C-alpha cells in the first residue's frame, strides 16, 4: 500500500469519528441542559449532584466498557459500538456540560430571572428564550473546549474495535510494522478537524457578539 492508500484508508475513519462526536455532543447538550436546569428544582439536586459526581469520578474507558459489555450482558441485549460510544460520550460530556451551564446560569444577574417573573413569562419559556440564550453565549468558549475534548475522546472507541481514525491507523501500523506514518496521518486528521471546529466557532462567535450589560 502506498502512502496515499494509507491516507485514504485511515481517512475513512472520519465518518465514525464524526458520528461519535456529533451524537455525543447532541446527547451531552440535551442531557447537560436538563441536568443544569434540574439543579434549580430543590428535590432533584441530590440525585443530579450524585449522577454528575459518579460520571466525573470514573474513567471514560470504564464507562465505555460498562455500556458496551456490562449493561448488554446484564440485560441480555446487544448494543452496537456506535450506540455504546454515543451513549458513553454523551453521558460523560453531559456531566461537564451541566457544570459549564450551571456556572453560566449563576453568572447571570438574578434580576434577569426576576424580570421574567414580573413579566409573567412561564418558567419553560423563561429558560428557553431568556436565560439559556444568554448562558450559551456566555459559556460558548467553554462549550467549544468540551467539543474538542469530546472529539479527542472518540479515539477510545478504538479499544472496542470501532473503525475510527485511531483504530484504522493502528490497523495500518500492525499490518505494515511501521507506526510513524499511520500515527502521524491520524494525528493530522484530528488536528485538521479541531482547527475546523475552532474556525466555525470563531465565525459563530463573531456573528453572535453583543455587549453583556443592558
Amino acid at each position, binding site marked *: 500500500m502506498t502512502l496515499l492508500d494509507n491516507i485514504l484508508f485511515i481517512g475513512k475513519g472520519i465518518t465514525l469519528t464524526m458520528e461519535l462526536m456529533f451524537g455525543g455532543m447532541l446527547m451531552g447538550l440535551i442531557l447537560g441542559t436538563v441536568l443544569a436546569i434540574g439543579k434549580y428544582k430543590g428535590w432533584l439536586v441530590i440525585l443530579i449532584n450524585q449522577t454528575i459526581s459518579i460520571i466525573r469520578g470514573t474513567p471514560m474507558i470504564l464507562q465505555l466498557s460498562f455500556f458496551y459489555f456490562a449493561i448488554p450482558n446484564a440485560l441480555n441485549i446487544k448494543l452496537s459500538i456506535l450506540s455504546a460510544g454515543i451513549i458513553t460520550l454523551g453521558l460523560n460530556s453531559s456531566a461537564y456540560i451541566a457544570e459549564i451551564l450551571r456556572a453560566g446560569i449563576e453568572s447571570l444577574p438574578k434580576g*434577569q430571572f*426576576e424580570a421574567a417573573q414580573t413579566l*409573567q*413569562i412561564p418558567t419553560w419559556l423563561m429558560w428557553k428564550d431568556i436565560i439559556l440564550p444568554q448562558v450559551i*453565549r456566555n459559556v460558548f468558549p467553554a462549550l467549544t473546549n468540551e467539543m474538542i475534548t469530546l472529539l479527542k475522546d472518540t479515539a477510545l472507541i478504538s479499544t472496542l474495535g470501532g473503525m475510527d481514525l485511531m483504530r484504522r491507523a493502528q490497523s495500518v501500523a500492525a499490518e505494515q510494522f511501521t507506526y510513524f506514518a499511520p500515527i502521524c496521518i491520524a494525528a493530522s486528521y484530528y488536528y485538521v478537524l479541531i482547527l475546523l471546529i475552532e474556525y466555525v466557532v470563531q465565525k459563530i462567535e463573531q456573528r453572535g457578539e453583543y455587549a453583556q450589560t443592558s
Partner: protein
Amino acid sequence: MLKLVNVGKKFAKTAILKNINFNVTKGGIVGLAGASGSGKSTLLRCIQKLERIDEGTIEYTGTSSFMFQDFQLFPHMTVFENLVYAPKKIFKNTNVEKEAFHLLEQLGLKNKAHTLPSKISGGQKQRVALARCLMMKPNILLCDEPTSGLDVATIEDVVQLLRTVHAMEVTMVIASHDLDFLTRIATRIIVLKNGIKAADIDVSELSDPINNLKVHYQESL
C-alpha cells in the same frame, strides 16, 4: 386599590420591615423615601411578590409591574423584542406589535426599535424599561429608584414620563432617595426608617413642598 396591613419581613433573624400599613387609592402616586437600607426596595419587592412577607397582608386589584433600578432589559433582544416578547406570549393578541411601536413613538424611541439595549443610553434604557412595564397594562406600577444615576435633564424626562403614565390612571409606588424628584411626582410620601413607617406626608398639604418635606424628612430620621 393597594392595601398593606401590618406587613413584616425578615432576612434571617433581622427584621427589614416592621408593621407597615398604608392604602393607595386608584391613580395615586406614593413615594417611598428613606435612607439606604431603610427597606424601600424590599417593600416594593414584597408588593411585587419578589420577596415573601413574613407577617401581614398585601392586597391589590389587577396586575402590577416592576421597574428595576438597573432596568434588567434582556440584552440579547432588541428594544422592540423586549417590549413585545411577554405580551405576545400572554395576551396572544395581534395588536401587540402596533402598540409597541406606538409606545416607542410616544417615548421618542422609534428609531431605536431594532437596537440592542447595550447600544442605547441610560435615559433611553429607562424609557424602554418603562415601556416594557406599560406593555403589560399594569394597574400598579412599582418603580425602584427610577432616577438613580441619571443627569438632571434625564430626571426631568422621567418626571414627564411618569406624569404621562399617571394620566393613564395607573397607580404608582416609587422608591427613591431623591426628595426633590419625589415631591414633583408623588401626591403622598411615606418615609421609612429602619423598616418602620416614620412619616406619612400628604404633599398637597405642604405650602413649600420641597423645603417642608426636607424638614419632615430630617425630623423623621
